[in-house]
């Protein structure tokens, strides 16, 4: 195997792409959360002037793309690929939101891990010389996700404490072969892991083994250790999944607790905002990364970050048929300097 591949699941990028701009547009609730100052726009209501939630989600993607491009001083013509996805069936938020973009498009689905998946593919494309500039972008919308995966919004039902709250928002970054960082240095692609959890209201518990596995493999493949990072941030395990992931890694002799956070716990104030175990959705890790993490890396308060977005690869049909939940986690290693 040629030099770029190190270990079983990891690629070390020889020409690390630079993240040159990032943008995030979020919903009202996210705009009331602890990261509100990091978002470019907070939409005033769940429809944002559109007739349906699905259209709103497409608009989130479309407007986020426009922001990413304008912040980087680029036009759509400069972009070789858009790699995007969302939670809706057949990824209609991305497909419809980007249909007028005129840019070669790769649609991806990795549930809530989609942001790391698109950044992984994007980095490899740039490293291989197949693209100069590309955009990685994902979205989710609380209402459209509830409609597809759970119950009608106005139904008077209770959510169990382990349930997570789908983030309304779209976030994305522009990767380029030119630029002054932060750089994507390693990509560790996760494998599908299913530990037999069937409760679709406990995604954190289902996804934790996938996150722990990818983090462990990343260290093994790269020879890096938790000390190599200022922040190891998982996609959206929520409070239960984060604790389980931490304990699973401790059993393996890997202690990341002092630098371990989770996007689902960062985007909301879980004590005050009635989101039970935390946030989730493709937009959650995308907005936390493109807003908070990217800006903090630019400022220099974060230098080395391991971004591990996690996804529960279930569907409403698989849940109704009593299947357990296959899960995945993809890791992207980002460094402020080379």
């Amino acid at each position, binding site marked *: 195997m040629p030099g770029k591949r190190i270990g079983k699941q990891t690629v070390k990028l020889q020409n690390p792409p630079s993240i040159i701009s990032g943008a995030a547009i979020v919903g009202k609730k996210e705009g009331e959360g602890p990261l509100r100052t990091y978002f470019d726009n907070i939409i005033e209501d769940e429809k944002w002037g559109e007739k349906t939630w*699905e259209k709103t989600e497409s608009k989130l993607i479309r407007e986020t793309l426009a922001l990413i491009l304008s912040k980087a001083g680029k036009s759509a013509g400069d972009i070789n690929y858009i790699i995007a996805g969302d939670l809706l069936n057949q990824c209609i938020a991305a497909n419809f939101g980007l249909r007028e973009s005129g840019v070669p498009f790769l649609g991806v689905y990795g549930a809530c891990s989609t942001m790391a998946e698109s950044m992984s593919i994007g980095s490899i494309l740039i490293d291989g010389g197949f693209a100069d500039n590309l955009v990685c972008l994902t979205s989710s919308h609380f209402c459209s996700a509830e409609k597809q995966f759970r*119950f009608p919004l106005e*139904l008077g039902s209770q959510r169990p*404490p382990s349930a997570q709250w789908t983030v309304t928002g779209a976030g994305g970054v522009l990767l380029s072969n030119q630029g002054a960082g932060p750089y994507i240095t390693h990509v560790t692609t996760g494998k599908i*892991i299913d*530990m037999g959890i069937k409760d679709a209201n406990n995604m954190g*518990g289902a996804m934790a083994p996938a996150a722990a596995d990818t983090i462990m493999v990343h260290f093994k493949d790269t020879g890096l250790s938790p000390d190599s990072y200022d922040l190891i941030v998982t996609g959206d395990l929520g409070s*239960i999944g984060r604790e*389980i992931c931490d304990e*699973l890694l401790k059993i393996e002799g890997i202690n990341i607790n002092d630098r371990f956070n989770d996007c689902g716990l960062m985007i909301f104030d879980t004590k005050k905002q009635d989101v039970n175990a935390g946030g989730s959705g493709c937009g959650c890790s995308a907005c936390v990364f493109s807003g908070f993490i990217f800006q903090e890396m630019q400022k220099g308060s974060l230098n080395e970050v391991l971004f591990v977005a996690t996804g529960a690869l279930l569907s409403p049909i698989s849940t109704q048929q009593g299947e357990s939940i296959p899960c995945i986690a993809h890791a992207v290693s980002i460094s402020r300097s080379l």
Partner: protein
Amino acid sequence: MNKNYTKKEYQVYVESKTPKSKHVRNIARAFLIGGLICVLGQFISNFLKNKGLDTENASNLTSLILVFLGALFTGLNVYDELGRYAGAGSIVPITGFANSIVSPAMEFKSEGYVLGVGAKMFLIAGPVLVYGISASVAAGILYYLLKF
């Protein structure tokens, strides 16, 4: 990663890590709100009887009014908030039944009046109707047979 836990062990472990619903609190709230809805129904029923309706007509009209109120407060985006607080307390009374029909009707209006509202209206109430009616038919047949 998976060598430390078998699937079964992991499920037990996750269960132990997952906080339980606060049953005592939920039951108390359900009792309170469910009870209040029933008191409201009784109040309406008494009022109608005072106006001269007989018991059967008064209870039919009471159900109608409660269904209307359930539908109205679903449309006003209030019933889901009530449900989040009260749980079964607002699901079990007839107002909850109205909520279970109106909420999908609102949700799926964007897919049109036939394949959206029409087809999805009974998404949640449908199973209740199917098995409720089936059970009543079964009980009727049993009653008929036992009478002989």
